[in-house]
């Protein structure tokens, strides 16, 4: 049986597809895995979100965007609740979302790496999102945002960003 609250929830989830990550504007917050749930209780809507990284500044922008987007659709009474468990992982990203990232020019996250903490071990090759060469090197483990690293493609001589697998 579909209740009123259920259909309301579906409607709100559909509207929230409009909210994108400001740094990765091809992914909605649902595709990114930041949007965890929507709870409808009477007039009140609680949007449950989890941060990508502990200090990600884009979280504030995404939370504000959730509130203004729903307000635009006539939902005034919105609260954002932040949860930390389960911890966000790039494994939540669907193949479709990964394809969107690659098309946008960001190499999608690979599988989670082993628990081996010792450095200088070989890592799985990363494919260049432009020319698909796997002859690429890590330029910088940290990128312009917490979730990305900077790589360089020896095939097409382009720097590119990699969405880090965590």
């Amino acid at each position: 049986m579909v209740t009123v609250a259920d259909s309301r929830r579906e409607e709100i989830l559909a509207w929230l597809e409009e909210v994108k990550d400001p740094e990765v504007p091809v992914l909605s917050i649902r595709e990114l895995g930041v949007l965890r749930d929507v709870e409808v209780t009477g007039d009140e809507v609680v949007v449950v979100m989890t941060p990508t990284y502990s200090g990600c500044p884009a979280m504030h922008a995404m939370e504000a965007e959730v509130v203004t987007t729903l307000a635009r659709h006539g939902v005034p009474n919105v609260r954002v609740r932040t949860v930390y468990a389960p911890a966000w992982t790039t494994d939540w990203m669907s193949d479709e979302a990964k394809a969107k990232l690659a098309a946008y020019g960001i190499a999608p996250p690979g599988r989670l790496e082993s628990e081996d903490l010792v450095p200088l071990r070989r890592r799985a090759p990363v494919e260049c999102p432009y020319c698909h060469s796997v002859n690429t090197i890590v330029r910088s483990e940290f990128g312009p945002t917490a979730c990305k690293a900077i790589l360089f493609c020896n095939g097409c001589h382009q720097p590119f960003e990699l969405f880090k697998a965590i």
Partner: protein
Amino acid sequence: MSRAGNREQGTGNGGSPDSWVPGARPATATSGVVENPFFEYLLRLADDRLVLGHRLSEWCGHAPILEEDIALANIALDLIGQASMLLKLAGEVEGKGRNEDALAYFRDAIEFRNAQLVELPNGDFAVTIVRQFLFDAWDVLVLERLTSASNQALAGIAAKALKEAKYHLRHTAEWVHMLGDGTAESHARAQRALDDLWPYTAELFMSDDIDAQAVASGSGVDVESLGPRWRQTVEQVIGEATLTIPKDGFAPRGGRTGRHTEHLGRMLADMQSLARAHPGAAW
């Protein structure tokens, strides 16, 4: 740390900034009876991250290469984010209406509970990297244990922070390799950094009644037991980097009970000046 706007952080009450008045700061015991041991314990976890995060942020715009400038700023952001979550939880546990901003910006040095290692000045790039490596190797072990804390909020924060700490450790360990096994100059600087910092690592493995009570409640880490595993990681990386582990000896302590080096007060004066000049300011 938080910004004003349409947001409600986390679960629980969080404590509104309005309910707390600057100047009406509850004194935190530095010795003797501790009113709320779990609050104290959370401050220890949070302050390591807040102070080290601020130290790393001092490199922003000054690191030797652009990639490292970005890396240090990113690590700083992770640590300050973790501190924010832990201080918020600490404020809830304390129950006196202090939120993460009140705890970060309106406590004096004597009320900070970080280990002295993290408050030391950045020194040169080698000092910053070696310190970060020594801390990260310890931090990963602490967070691994805390993921099974009986306090669910703490366990959740630890699970999140652990992913970040592992990434930090991989990065700083690679840099220890590069500096130690690099040029004569980088080797000498890395060794000097290691020699200078080594005594301060002892405090990371010291525990007292506060730690013991947290462990007994299922939400703490027996840091003394982490020593051998930490030593194994550190010895391997330091050895591969052709550096030499210094001898144990002089071991300063006191940070966990509010006795700090002269450096912390100066750092806090810088870190807290804006918040104290404009209490309650938001951006």
